[in-house]
């Protein structure tokens, strides 16, 4: 009864791989969305006019301080009433990416603020236009500082993917739960999924660190 049934592991494999694909898809796309949007927010925080700064601040604070689950429900059940409808997977990926973008925005903000004021002044003294100041001077210096913190959010995001069950997305943990429900064997699929989380999270953190080293040079 308590012994580990390896045949249940192999029975679980087909569903497991389906789940892994979904998890990775949500993780990769969610990360890209959160990295990109977060940067947009962080630059908007420094916009010359408060008519940009103020709404962006309110919006990101709102997203950051309300539960991801609420946002998930909102996107999945409320937006269709206004005629905006996507698959559960797309909705979930966008919701996670948006939610985490409000965290990465804070990371970028700190990284940008850590670039010495003299760098902005030197850019002004050379008459560099704003987009060159950002692209060539400020962001390359900010990126190095934020890479480790961004990596931590990738891992946090990975651990949040099971929340997509709420809108019926079967990523790997929910596949395990479903498998358990049908076969009454929970230990094996849950163990497999636990190990899989580690196997994804650890290389992800290594990847981020390698990227960091390459950017520092």
């Amino acid at each position, binding site marked *: 009864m308590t012994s580990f049934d390896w045949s249940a592991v192999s029975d679980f494999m087909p569903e497991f791989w389906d789940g892994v694909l979904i998890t990775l898809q949500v993780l990769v796309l969610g990360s890209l969305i959160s990295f990109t949007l977060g940067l947009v927010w962080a630059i908007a925080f420094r916009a010359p006019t408060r008519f940009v700064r103020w709404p962006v601040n309110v919006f990101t604070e709102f997203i950051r301080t309300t539960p991801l689950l609420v946002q998930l429900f909102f996107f999945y059940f409320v937006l269709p009433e206004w005629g905006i409808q996507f698959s559960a997977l797309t909705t979930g990926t966008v919701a996670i990416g948006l939610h985490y973008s409000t965290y990465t925005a804070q990371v970028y903000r700190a990284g940008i603020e850590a670039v*010495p004021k003299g760098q902005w*002044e030197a850019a*002004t*003294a050379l*008459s560099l*236009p704003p987009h060159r100041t950002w692209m060539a001077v400020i962001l*390359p210096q900010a990126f190095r500082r934020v890479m480790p913190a961004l990596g931590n959010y990738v891992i946090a995001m990975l651990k949040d993917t099971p929340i997509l069950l709420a809108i019926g997305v079967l990523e790997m943990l929910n596949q395990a739960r479903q498998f358990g429900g049908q076969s009454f064997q929970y230990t094996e699929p849950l163990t497999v999924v636990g190990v899989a989380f580690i196997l994804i999270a650890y290389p992800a953190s290594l990847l981020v660190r390698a990227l960091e080293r390459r950017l520092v040079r």
Partner: protein
Amino acid sequence: MSADTPAGTTAGATSDALIRFDNVTKRFGDNTVLDDLCFSVRPGKHVTLIGPSGSGKTTILRLLMTLESPDEGTITVNGNRLFPADEKERREARKKIGMVFQQFNLFPNMTVLRNLTEAPVRVLGLSKDEAEVRAKELLELVGLADRCDARPTQLSGGQQQRVAIARALAMRPQVLLLDEVTSALDPELVAGVLDLLRDIARTTDITMLCVTHEMNFARDISDDVLMFDAGKVIESGPPEKIFSDPEHERTREFLGAVL
């Protein structure tokens, strides 16, 4: 207001002034850093600003570089308005001005060469090749031709400051602002940077505005010295006059303390 009208600077209106401050006031909170300041600098002149710290010298350079905005008054460079002006006009006026900072402020994410080519390519519209040829000439001039591919952090403070001078010159400025450029350097590195600036002062027609505590350097390169106190020019004149026979009591006190 300046006390008299020496060779390079004048208190009143002149048509041939390159830099003009008219009734410029700058406050930081309750602190009035520049108080209804008027002065002008003619093309090609080297002007040194001296005075106790907090007297507004550096603020003048920062206003010219548009790193600060005045609360009142007009600033023009070569007939172009810097303040008040719209962003386009200001950008045009600013292109003629280069600045060297106390802390160098080189871009650490770029090589030395790219520090010198980035703005000429992006702002002046030079081709990459043109900009690199010019950058290498300038690095030759500052004695760092062999460090093109180095990162700024691999250089000594004195070398970094010489690169920063070359970077400012790469924009072919009419005006070079020098903000205490040797204050952050180890003592043994100061002479090299000052010698370079003496060379540039002697061999080019670039107008220089210089804030420094190096009085010997000020005496060597200046056509005029402006003595600041509490946001006003209290005395101005050629260095021989100011350093040996100052008229104002505050100037005498200040020079007594620093010389």
